[in-house]
């Protein structure tokens, strides 16, 4: 009845069959590491304060990898919306709309497809960062629970952004419109967050805004886990708080997307 599974399989097939999308999608996280991880190293000017700035991280890549993982989700999530518009343009959407499947499964298949891409990209990102000479250095107490929470966080932030852009695409017919919206939204989301810089380096007003930004929540969860491994009580409560924000926001956005899809999607 749902159609979600065959449609999601289609998304994934289309992704790995398209050599350009596939390669670009895999290279993207590596570029992020090369650019933000080394070129932008904010501790280089003041190495004596680096431990303080990086909140205890042994190097900048370890500090920033949570931010890069999150930004990857932000940018790949946009494909979910783009693909809805492609399907409308190229015709398959009219076939899906005429089939006895829930309309939300058409949209949610895009969300799941994009989330799978994001998970694969982030996995590659972590492996590459671990292999890099002065890359990701995991602490002693780092364990399977940390890995699990990181995976959950990436999954949630992936679903969140993919749903957000899909919801935007439900009523849009032009590629240009969604590109414009993406450009408008992505930069503020990325820079008004704790993804790339710690709060104490930001202008106070941005620092305040950033605490409401899902990009910050996800980046902070991953960062706390990657830097500390075995968490103290205070660190646990930071992680859990952010996780609760993230879970509730994701559920809310997914629900809105499903309702919009059921009611509003058309050719």
């Amino acid at each position, binding site marked *: *009845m749902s*159609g979600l*599974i*065959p*449609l999601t*399989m*289609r998304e994934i*097939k*289309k992704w790995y*069959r*398209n050599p350009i999308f596939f390669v670009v999608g895999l290279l993207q996280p590596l570029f992020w590491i090369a650019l933000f991880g080394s070129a932008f190293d904010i501790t280089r000017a003041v190495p004596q304060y680096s431990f303080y700035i990086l909140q205890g991280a042994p190097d900048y890549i370890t500090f920033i990898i949570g931010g890069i993982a999150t930004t990857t989700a932000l940018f790949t999530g946009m494909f979910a919306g783009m693909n809805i518009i492609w399907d409308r343009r*190229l*015709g*398959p959407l*009219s*076939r*899906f*709309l*005429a*089939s*006895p*499947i829930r309309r939300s499964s058409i949209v949610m298949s895009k969300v799941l497809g994009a989330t799978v891409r994001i998970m694969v990209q982030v996995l590659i990102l972590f492996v590459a960062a671990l292999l890099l000479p002065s890359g990701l250095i995991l602490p002693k107490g780092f364990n399977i629970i940390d890995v699990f929470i990181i995976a959950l966080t990436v999954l949630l932030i992936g679903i969140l952004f993919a749903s957000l852009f899909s919801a935007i695409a439900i009523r849009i017919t032009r590629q240009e419109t969604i590109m414009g919206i993406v450009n408008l939204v992505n930069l503020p989301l990325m820079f008004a967050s704790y993804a790339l810089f710690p709060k104490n380096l930001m202008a106070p007003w941005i620092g305040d805004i950033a605490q409401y930004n899902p990009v910050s929540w996800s980046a902070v969860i991953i960062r706390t886990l990657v830097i500390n491994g075995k968490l103290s009580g205070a660190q646990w409560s930071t992680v859990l708080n952010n996780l609760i924000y993230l879970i509730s926001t994701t559920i809310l956005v997914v629900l809105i997307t499903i309702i919009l899809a059921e009611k509003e999607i*058309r*050719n």
Partner: protein
Amino acid sequence: MYSVETFNLTKFYSNGIKAVDKINLQINEGEIYGLLGPNGAGKTTTIKMLTTALKPTEGTAKVAGFDIIKESMMVRRNVGIVPQDLTADEDLTGIENLLMVSRFYNVPYGRAKESIDRLVKLVDLKDAINKPVGQYSGGMRRRLELIMGLVHNPKVLFLDEPTLGLDVQTRSLMWEYIRNIQQLQNITIILTSHYLEEVDALSNRLSIINKGKIVVTGTPEELKKSIGGDIVMLTFKYGKEALQAADILKSYKASRITELTIKIKSSDFSKDSQIILSILKQSNLEPIRIQVEKPSLDTVFLEYVGRSLPEEEGDSDSRKMMLMMRRLRR
């Protein structure tokens, strides 16, 4: 029970266009029913409502026994559609597209595979079925679209201009496929087209629609008869004979069209010919050539849609249609 029955089915678009205006159709099980009309007549809008892609503004319809508004999911499960636009995914192969669609209808894999094999053979797509659809020719894509609407064994199949943009040969091949499908599956087919020959060749009943309204309904033969029967050209050896014959055959609406030829109308010339010829013989007249022109749907269409056309800008679409029709006849 009718396979498709509409009750004052109406659609106004938000821009104020009355695309479909109180249409009442009754389509029997196992029929191939044609909806014939010029561009913008409302054919696609009608099909979209009947397949639940679009909600009617007013009225409703029953398709395969289910109400299109209240039981839209059941309607979707029981109908197949081949929309006017192409819908296959170009990145997937033909077989992948077909299998995906059959999963939308919860057809178990084994059964899906079986019926896909049969359909692929039916439309001669075997060689191409494992290639990405992006590499298909226009005719191959249309054939794929045709069977994509059939993988779940629907009771009713909607074909919206299934041969649009195909060459004459491929088109008549498509007609054969459509006929075979109808016979093998005993399915009701609703076919829209603005190719007159297509509707003539395929449908056993049809409605001509224009500007959202049904203008006339009947079998192709009935509609042709309603025009007033066969047109017969009689050619004589001498001009004065033709003149005389035209006078004698006044009751057959005779008129002289060239010096030696007159045109008469007869409801069925195969029956009337003996009488007509014997009337002529009484006056010692014998035509040297007799030409019978059966009325075509073309004449029917011009009669019901063409002649009533006011010369307005708004009708440029319908006028284009008529021009195209003429081109087709040549």
